[in-house]
């Protein structure tokens, strides 16, 4: 059979990268995505080391320095209780990211499980689950979150649960459709032909191949979760004072917006930049993960 053994190594000279490397390589080419990634990394850094890098305490009131404009001592000025806005923003990043990631985590776990079961088993199970999801989807997400928080009471944990649960249908749908499309692929049949059990097929073949759209949706989801949480805090259903939350800060500053716009300007900017960065990153990842756009 020697003639079947390859004789000439004609392919060569082209770099081969690992899959993660390939994705990062393609991500690097999009400046917007890189900007997004940088902002997200900075935010994570701020959240982790808030105690070290924040110049002041987030809660210490200083009534002799109320409504101060940005100065060398207070880089972004102070609020109505004389608290340093920059420090509050830095601590606020901690809350926002926590809410964003944990809420998406909850949504992804519950939604992913429901979606995977729906997609893999199909039939009446699928029908049942997806109809419940349809009902949830027909209620505006914010309204749903408000209802859940109202039932559970305000607080960080309840906020995350509310935002998370209100996003479950989105994840259930996306996981289901990507499981469905992978389940129909020939390599799943090939795995069955060599005797692979269901559990191995799901874990080894279906899940790794359905990650791409889920990662993208999660990145975008973090942004909408942060926005949702800020919205709930703004109307007083989220984080309670004095803990700094961007939405709550925005809400607290709104009565002074005519005289001291910096109270609302900076938290607003923080929210906007974060959301924008996450969306850029999500879009970049979508392009980088799509093998059809390769080359």
């Amino acid at each position, binding site marked *: 059979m020697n003639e079947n053994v390859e004789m000439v190594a004609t*392919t060569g000279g082209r770099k081969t990268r690992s899959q993660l490397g390939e994705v990062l390589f393609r991500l690097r080419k999009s400046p917007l995505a890189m900007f997004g990634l940088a902002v997200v990394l900075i935010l994570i850094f701020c959240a982790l080391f808030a105690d070290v890098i924040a110049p002041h305490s987030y809660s210490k009131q200083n009534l002799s320095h109320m409504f101060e404009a940005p100065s060398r001592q207070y880089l972004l000025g102070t609020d109505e209780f004389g608290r340093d806005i920059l420090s509050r923003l830095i601590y606020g990043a901690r809350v926002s990211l926590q809410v964003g990631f944990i809420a998406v985590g909850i949504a992804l776990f519950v939604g992913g499980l429901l979606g995977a079961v729906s997609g893999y088993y199909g039939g009446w199970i699928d029908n049942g689950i997806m109809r419940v999801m349809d009902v949830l989807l027909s209620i505006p997400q914010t309204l749903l979150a408000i209802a859940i928080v109202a039932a559970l009471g305000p607080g960080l944990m309840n906020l995350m649960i509310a935002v998370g649960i209100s996003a479950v249908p989105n994840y259930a749908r996306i996981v289901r459709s990507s499981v469905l499309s992978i389940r129909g692929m020939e390599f799943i049949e090939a795995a069955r032909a060599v005797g692979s059990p269901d559990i191995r097929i799901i874990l080894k073949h279906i899940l790794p191949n359905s990650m791409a759209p889920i990662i993208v949706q999660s990145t975008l989801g973090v942004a909408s979760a942060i926005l949702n949480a800020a919205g709930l805090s703004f109307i007083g259903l989220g984080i309670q004072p004095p803990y700094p939350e961007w939405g709550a800060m925005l809400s607290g500053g709104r009565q002074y917006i005519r005289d001291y716009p910096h109270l609302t300007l900076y938290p607003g900017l923080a929210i906007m930049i974060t959301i924008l960065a996450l969306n850029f990153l999500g879009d970049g990842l979508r392009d980088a993960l799509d093998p059809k756009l390769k080359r």
Partner: protein
Amino acid sequence: MTMNANDLLLDIRELTIHYVTDNGTVHAVEGLNLELGRGETLGLVGETGAGKTTTALGITRLLPVPPGVVRGGQILFDGEDVLLKDEEEMRSIRGGKIAMIFQDPMTSLNPVMTVDKQVAEMIKLHRKVSESEALEQAAEMLDLVGIRRERLRDYPHQFSGGMKQRVVIAIALACDPKLLIADEPTTALDVTIQAQVLELMKNLKRQFGTSMILITHDLGIVAETCDKVGIMYAGRLVEYGDTKSLYDNPNHPYTVGLFKSVPDLEEDCDELSVIPGLMPDPMDLPSGCAFHPRCSHAEEACSRERPVMIEIEPGHFIACPVRARALGKA
């Protein structure tokens, strides 16, 4: 490779097309020379990645840019260089003078438009006719390709693959083009349907006097439909000649290998002879003759010098100096 200039419909000179990607430059077509006379049918044969489709896209200027780049050369159609035309002129040439048929009929038909409207659309684009005249001409055209009147108002999904390809042919021929480029027109079809469609194309070609470039990997189809054949390998033409001469007497080592790897219907053999190795990486083509690493006739010079076309019989050219010398033609 010279013909009386007046008989030439298409004259491609030193065409070079590259795709520039992040991982490197794909040398899709390299210094291609090709001629097509009026009323002739040319078969362009080669494996995946040989540059057949890229050549066709180059002629119709449908090359995706980026990543496609025409690096040089001329494409003289009716004496005028297509590469110098602006987009406005190209639009009237495409469909009007040069029509193209693709492999998958579904992708070239609009799923939400009835088939007679799609043919009429083409006619209206290139001729000054009223809606009803266009529809009447469309009906005649569809009748010609074997689609009955009662099916005119059907949508593409209501047709089978073979019937869809007939509609595509009707669209392509609606404006009586001078050149028809068919890119694997029957690859997606079954053998018995393929036979119908090829028969139809042959008849129509005769009727309209259209020149045709038929891109295929099937040597059998070429034998039945084409006057001339060009064999492509790694973006270059390696052998060219009239079909009879080339099929009776293939001479380039690649062509010979290609013919031998097709199982013969008449004879039994235990083992097919194969060309050793694989197609070269189009980003990293071997120097000199691109085929030399796989070639049993290769000499030292083959890795240095790029072979030129040598006429070994009247109208039969090969890009292999070694074989030409063996035939006493170098």
